[in-house]
């Protein structure tokens, strides 16, 4: 068996080993890298940056812990930026674990050195309305009255008793909506209901699997910006000035992509050289 035949028949566990090492070695170096910001991220950050202090931002956490490596970095950066610039956060989730992920972002922001001396008060600067079952029906109900969808917040306080929600009846009282989505329900439902029915200004962070599907919405102006996967998270961290895990992990991501591309090229070269490609072409003729 020639070298290239052996390459085609290689045990897949060698491929697994190379993939694992390509991620582990750069991760252990902990090098923070410089990133350029794509137009999709810049568009979203421009709108977010231009919100005046006191603006009401609705954040919908529509993901669970398995998607956290991709979405948590962008959520952490968005929450921290909001607290630093006096944006008022109204947090909710269409996934059961979403509001719990939001609590992680809030705690990380409040524990950070930049917010050490800042007064951030629950109920005044931010509120967590928790999870509501109902998928897009929840968004539809929020279009007429938030209180119909969320009678209480995650801590059991009644909607009417929460200061930040005093003049918030429905989407017309919201200045910006930020959606972190890992699937259904998520960005698609927010666009279909909140944007197209109630004219909400929406920015979205998606997992990389979902991001390509959201580009038509971006192109049609239904989204002001789109953060795609860990790269989107890293770009948003750089844009907001709070570089963290996503920026560090980009080096591992780079090596992993290089390994995958290399394997595909080697596989195609081996396929061509061993003549399997040629004999198939001749058979087709």
């Amino acid at each position, binding site marked *: 068996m020639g070298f290239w035949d052996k390459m085609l028949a290689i045990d897949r566990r060698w491929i697994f080993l190379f993939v694992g090492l390509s991620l582990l070695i750069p991760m252990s170096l902990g090098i923070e890298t410089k990133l350029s910001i794509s137009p999709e991220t810049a568009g979203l950050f421009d709108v977010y940056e231009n919100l005046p202090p006191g603006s009401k931002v609705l954040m919908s956490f529509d993901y669970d812990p398995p998607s956290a490596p991709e979405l948590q970095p962008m959520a952490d950066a968005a929450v921290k930026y909001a607290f630093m610039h006096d944006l008022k956060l109204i947090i909710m989730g269409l996934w059961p674990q979403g509001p719990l992920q939001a609590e992680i972002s809030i705690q990380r922001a409040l524990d950070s050195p930049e917010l050490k001396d800042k007064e951030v008060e629950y109920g005044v600067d931010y509120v967590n309305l928790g999870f509501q079952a109902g998928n897009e029906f929840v968004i539809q109900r929020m279009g007429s009255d938030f209180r119909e969808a969320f009678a209480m917040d995650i801590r059991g306080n009644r909607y009417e008793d929460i200061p930040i929600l005093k003049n918030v009846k429905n989407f017309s009282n919201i200045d910006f909506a930020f959606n972190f989505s890992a699937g259904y329900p998520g960005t698609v439902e927010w666009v279909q209901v909140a944007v197209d029915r109630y004219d909400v200004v929406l920015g979205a962070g998606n997992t990389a699997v979902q991001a*390509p599907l959201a580009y038509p919405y971006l192109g049609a102006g239904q989204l002001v910006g789109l953060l795609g996967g860990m790269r989107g998270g890293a770009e948003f961290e750089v844009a907001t000035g709070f570089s963290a895990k996503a920026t560090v992990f980009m080096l591992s991501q780079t090596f992993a992509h290089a390994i995958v591309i290399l394997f595909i090229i080697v596989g195609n070269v081996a396929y061509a050289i061993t003549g399997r490609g040629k004999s198939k072409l001749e058979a087709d003729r």
Partner: protein
Amino acid sequence: MNFDIGIWIAAFLTLGIMSFLYKDNPWYKISEAIFIGLSAGYWFVSLFWQNLVSKLWDNLWPALDALFTRGEFTGGLLYLIAGILGLMMLMRLVPQIGWISRWPLALVVGATAGLQFINYLVSNGVIQVYNTITPLFGPVSEAGGIAPVTDVWHGLGNALILVGTFTGLVYFFFSKEHKGFFGGAARVGTWFLMITFGASFGYTVMSRMSLLIGRLDFLVNTWITGIFT
């Protein structure tokens, strides 16, 4: 050494699932069985509290209380119908009367059809077509919601989107044979679709690698680092 039993259990189970990469083994099978049982239990309980209690019980109980204590008929009594429909759904477990589950299924199908009829038509149909037929060049009033195109590259980009969307749709039209000009347009459509699928593949690889980075981060920076601190 920082010993947190939760982190050690999480690490043990993470490595158990990853052991499948070497070969199938009892450690993986045990981890998988725990995952299956826990998933089913999680959804069983979550739906009980978040759907059945908060939507059914919380609406029905005050109405029943008003009826039996004050003789008042309130709108919450309508949720009795929902409770009955839910029980009918569970009848699917009994083959002889399983047909009764068609009634609640019909409600689910009807609600989904009604909602998606409008949402998909507007957001995924009309608005997408409207934003495909964009100017190729020239200052345009913003009344139509389309930004002015004064950059020739932007204009060419709009043309590319128009051609790509149109030929992609031509490819999916199977009622006419793909021959001649029509066939040529369909072939151009497949090129655009192949680029789309290639881009999706690239993003999928990125997504999977990110998830793996997350797990390796836990093993290295939380579990192993915890052993030495």
